[in-house]
Structures are given as C-alpha cells and as structure tokens.
C-alpha cells in the first residue's frame, strides 16, 4: 500500500527531486456518512496535492493522507470545522525517510554482496568476517585459498588465508591479527590487508612483486572465542576462553603461552589474571595450531603478530634482556618501517626490543618464532596511545590499516631481498 509510495519518495529523495520536510500523514476513521463525505471532498481539491496512502473505502475503515506542508493547516482546519477527528500518524515524513536511509545503509552493511561492497570502515562480527573470507576466496580462486589450521577451545574453526601465485612451499610471510580479542582495530585491519593484497595483485602494483616469489599467510581472527565474547558479553576480553582444571577463572593469555621463556618473569601463573601463561606451553589450541603450522611449513621468513594499542613496532626479546643476535638489523628495518608508516598521516611510533620498549613479557609469539629461526619476527601495537585505547573509533580503521600496510611492506620487501 504505502510501500511503492515510500520507495518513490526515497528515489525522489535520493535523486534530490523532491523533499518531504514538514509533510504529515493524517489518519481519519470516518464514523458517519457525513464524515466520509467530508473526507472524500478532500480528494477533489487538487491544489492541496494530497496523497492518499489509504483511500476512503467505507465507514470505520481508516483513511491515510499524506499532506504536503503548505496544505497542512488548511486540511486540519477543514477537518476540525467539520467535526471530523483525525490523528497524526507521521509528524514529519522527511524525518522518517532519513531514518529509513540510515537503516538501509546499515542493513546493506549486514549483507554485503561482494568484497567491493563490504564496509571496511566498520567493525564486524566473526560471522561477517568469515563470510568476507569466503567471498574473497570465491572472487579470487587463483590467488586466495582458506586453510583451517585447527579449532579453538569452543570448537570454532581457525582460518588462515593463503595468498599464492604458485610454486611449492615458497618462502612465506605470516601476519596475524586479533590474537588479543579486545584489540578490534587489528582484526578490522586484517580484513583490509586481505583485500589490499588482492587489489595489488590485480593491479600489478604494491605487493604483486612480492607474490611473484613469496606466499603470504594471514590469520585475521586468531582468537575467535575471545572475539565472539567481546561481541556478546565483555568488550574488553583479552584472553582465550579455555578452562583449565583447578580454577573458576577462564582464559589464557595467548601471547604468554608460547615456548620461549615460558613461565618466567613477564607472565602470571594465576589463572584469574590477564597475563596468565597457561598450565604449559601451547596449552591453547589457538597457539598450538600456529606452532604446528609454522613447524610443518618450515619456510616462513617473516612473522608479524599484530596488537593494539600503543603505537609501537617491537622485535625480540621480551623474556630476556640479552639482545637478539640480529638486533641491529631488526632495529634498522624497524626504523624504515616506522618512517614509512608515519609518512602517510604523521602517526608517531616508537620501536625497539619488547623488553626495552614496552615491558618484560615471557612466552610471547615472536620470541618463539625468532628462536625457531624466523629472523624477521615483529610485533606491532597499532593506534592509539590511550585516548580511546581498545575502543578506537571505527573511522580510524582505514587510516590505521593504510599506514600499517606501508610498514608491513617494508618488512616484506626486506625479507624478500634478504633471503636466508
């Protein structure tokens, strides 16, 4: 009934041909023949430009009339003078249309048709991100594939996107985001990175040259149980959602659960704390699956684990003050990467080893990967420096992802050009 009119109004609004500011929709329910007649008379008064959403049909049946603003007073006066009661169904049609527009945009965000209509400037749920990954693979079957490297404690699949132009077990770069679930800008950036890699490849620019000789592995939702929990229950949840016997507390810090300085100072043995290392190294399936993957792949040359916030680029070690043997080179690469990052929006980053730049931390991801022989092991802490912290406004997702990408490219190119 009023749907076609509303759609027409919407089209008109979208094409800026008509506005409905101040238009009201009045409802009259004629109770007598006189009232019915009075309403029917209105239909003949063309100059009023009335739009009957529900035409007069009979006694006791509602009549809905959209009244343009200039006619509102006249129509109400006519009805009141005739003793016909009416109610105002819609006080301002334009306001309703504006609301509808917003809703339509919002709902189109919930069901993107492809990775081009996907909204990279918003935070998404785990289902939306998993759906995005499937779409990306479907659109680029010759470049992207999805690997399941394991299952989380709550049995969610752990997916890694593989970007490869061929070859067999090429030297590879690993990037993970979202290992700490509350660090939402990282998963959001991971989604953007995935699309960016595909775009660069299609346009034969950026990382296209890297893909000629190397593969890229990207795990976007590294801690899916935690991520789901941040959506349903506690936005500031950090750890996994495992329960280990002997404690009522839930979760292990996945960045203290690796087998590098495990259990030493820089983690907590208390299950109820945020830096709980877990009962033993790799107790968390989210961690073990990556360990297994890295070991069986055997040819990963650069490993980047992404966190927020603090605006830092870090390299090993966190569990010891002993400098990493490649400290000098890692420091130089970090300087270049940070310079590239800052060049885009002026965002300031500090860099250095974990222990000297942020704090002592044991059992961390990149300390383990470095000790495995992956020389170019880095951890990022993305925006910001504390004003919004974990709750970074969605409008900063894009600039954060864009600037971080420049730093990642420096690392990837260095790995490509310095084979070992």
């Amino acid at each position: 009934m009023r749907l076609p009119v509303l759609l027409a109004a919407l089209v008109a609004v979208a094409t800026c041909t008509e506005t409905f500011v101040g238009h009201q929709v009045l409802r009259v329910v004629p109770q007598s023949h006189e009232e019915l007649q009075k309403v029917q008379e209105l239909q003949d008064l063309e100059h009023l430009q009335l739009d009957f959403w529900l035409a007069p049909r009979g006694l006791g049946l509602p009549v809905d009339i959209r009244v343009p603003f200039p006619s509102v007073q006249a129509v109400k006066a006519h009805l009141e003078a005739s003793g016909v009661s009416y109610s105002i169904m819609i006080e301002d049609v334009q306001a309703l249309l504006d609301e509808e527009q917003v809703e339509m945009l919002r709902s189109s965000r919930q069901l993107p048709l492809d990775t081009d209509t996907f909204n990279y400037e918003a935070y998404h749920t785990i289902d939306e991100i998993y759906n995005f990954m499937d779409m990306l693979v479907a659109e680029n079957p010759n470049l992207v594939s999805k690997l399941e490297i394991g299952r989380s404690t709550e049995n969610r699949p752990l997916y890694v996107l593989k970007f490869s132009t061929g070859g067999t077990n090429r030297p590879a770069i690993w990037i993970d985001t979202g290992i700490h679930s509350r660090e939402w800008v990282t998963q959001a950036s991971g989604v953007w990175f995935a699309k960016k890699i595909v775009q660069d490849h299609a346009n034969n620019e950026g990382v296209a040259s890297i893909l000629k000789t190397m593969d890229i592995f990207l795990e976007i939702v590294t801690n899916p149980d935690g991520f789901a929990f941040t959506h349903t229950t506690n936005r500031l949840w950090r750890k996994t959602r495992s329960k280990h016997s002997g404690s009522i507390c839930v979760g292990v810090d996945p960045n203290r659960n690796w087998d590098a300085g495990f259990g030493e100072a820089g983690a907590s043995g208390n299950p109820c704390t945020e830096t709980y290392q877990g009962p033993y190294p790799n107790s968390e399936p989210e961690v073990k699956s990556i360990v297994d993957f890295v070991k069986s792949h055997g040819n990963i040359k650069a490993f980047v684990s992404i966190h927020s916030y603090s605006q830092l680029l870090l390299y090993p070690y966190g569990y010891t003050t002993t400098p990493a043997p490649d400290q000098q080179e890692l420091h130089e690469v970090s300087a270049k990467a940070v310079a590239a990052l800052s060049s885009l929006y002026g965002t300031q980053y500090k860099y250095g080893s974990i222990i000297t730049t942020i704090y002592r931390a044991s059992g961390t991801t990149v300390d383990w990967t470095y000790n495995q022989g992956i020389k170019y092991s880095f951890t990022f802490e993305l925006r910001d420096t504390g004003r919004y912290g974990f709750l970074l406004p969605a409008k900063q997702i894009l600039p954060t992802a864009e600037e971080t990408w420049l730093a990642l490219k420096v690392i990837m190119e260095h790995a490509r050009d310095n084979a070992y």
Partner: protein
Amino acid sequence: IPESGHKYYLQFSTEDYRTGEDAGNCLATVLYPKKKSPPVVSIKCSHTKDQKKIQEEDNALYQRIRHQSKPITGNNIPDSHGNIEPALEPVWALAVAGSSSIMWEKSTETLAYFLAQVKSVRQWMRKDDFTEFDYTVLLHEIPTQEIISCHLRLTWLPGHPLKVKHFCAPQSHAMDEGSGAEAGSAAGPPAGKGATF
C-alpha cells in the same frame, strides 16, 4: 640515586584531549623514594592556551550540562565501536579529568593506567550551582593488562577545582590450588579515599 631512590627527568608536550591541539610543554622531575611512598614531583609547564579561552570553554561545557532538562545518564562511553554520543561528550570530558585523579594516586614506578571506558554515569541534581556525577570507570592497568573498575564521584563548577572521591574494586584474583607463586589476592584494606586536586 644510591641510598635515595630513582629520579626521573621528564620533558614532554601536552595536547588538548578533545581537539588534539598543542597545549604547551612541561619539564618535570619525579623522585621515587627507596621506601615505597608517593613520589616527589616538581613540575613546570608552559601554557599555550589563554586563560580567558579556557574559562570560556569551561563555561560552555557547564552550560551544556545545566541545560539538560533531566539528570544525565549514560552507559558504555565510548561504545564498542569507539563512538561517543555528542550529548554525552561533556560528561565524558569530566570523567577523563576525574579519572586522571584516580590514576595520579594509583600510579607507581611500575604501574600505569589509561581510561578504557566510562561504564556508566549518573548525574545527581543539586540545589546549588555545582554539577555532580557518579561514574563507574574502567581503567586499563599496564603492564598487568588488567581492567580495574572504579567508582568515581565528582563535583564541579567552573572556576573551582574538580572535587573527586573514588573507590576502586579490589582485584579479585581467586586463588586456586596450583598457583602458589603469584600473589594478587584481594587481601588488604579497600583502596578508596577522597581526593581533591
């Protein structure tokens, strides 16, 4: 400094929390005595912002709060997506200021804080000109990564220092059989006390 403690020399710049505008530079020394007690701080700052402008902005903020017809209430500021409703910005700004008082008291040589989120706010209407708010704020503690919940009671009138009372929930790190090494139990007196600055 042998026998005395650790002394830090700091040089830093400040910026307006809302706009990011440069707000001046500061030079400070912070001495953490060997015996754990509050640090000794000396600080000198240059102000790039004109006092009159600050007063104007304070008054504008105050008016925005006073003009509300009902007591202001809110939850989750910013929300999960980092949004702050424009109507709640003044209330958030006051929470930032009030929380900094909590952080000033709680910080140590090894523990730092950031305001993670304003979990809830409720305004108490007063007969006088002061504005009064009750907050639950969540502080992010570094390096432990813990989220500390604090209750904050704040009164304010432009031209007067912010009056702050706070109480932070003791960390309930329930002990289990296996973890003897880490302390972190809830034993000890409550951490709250009144504070004005």
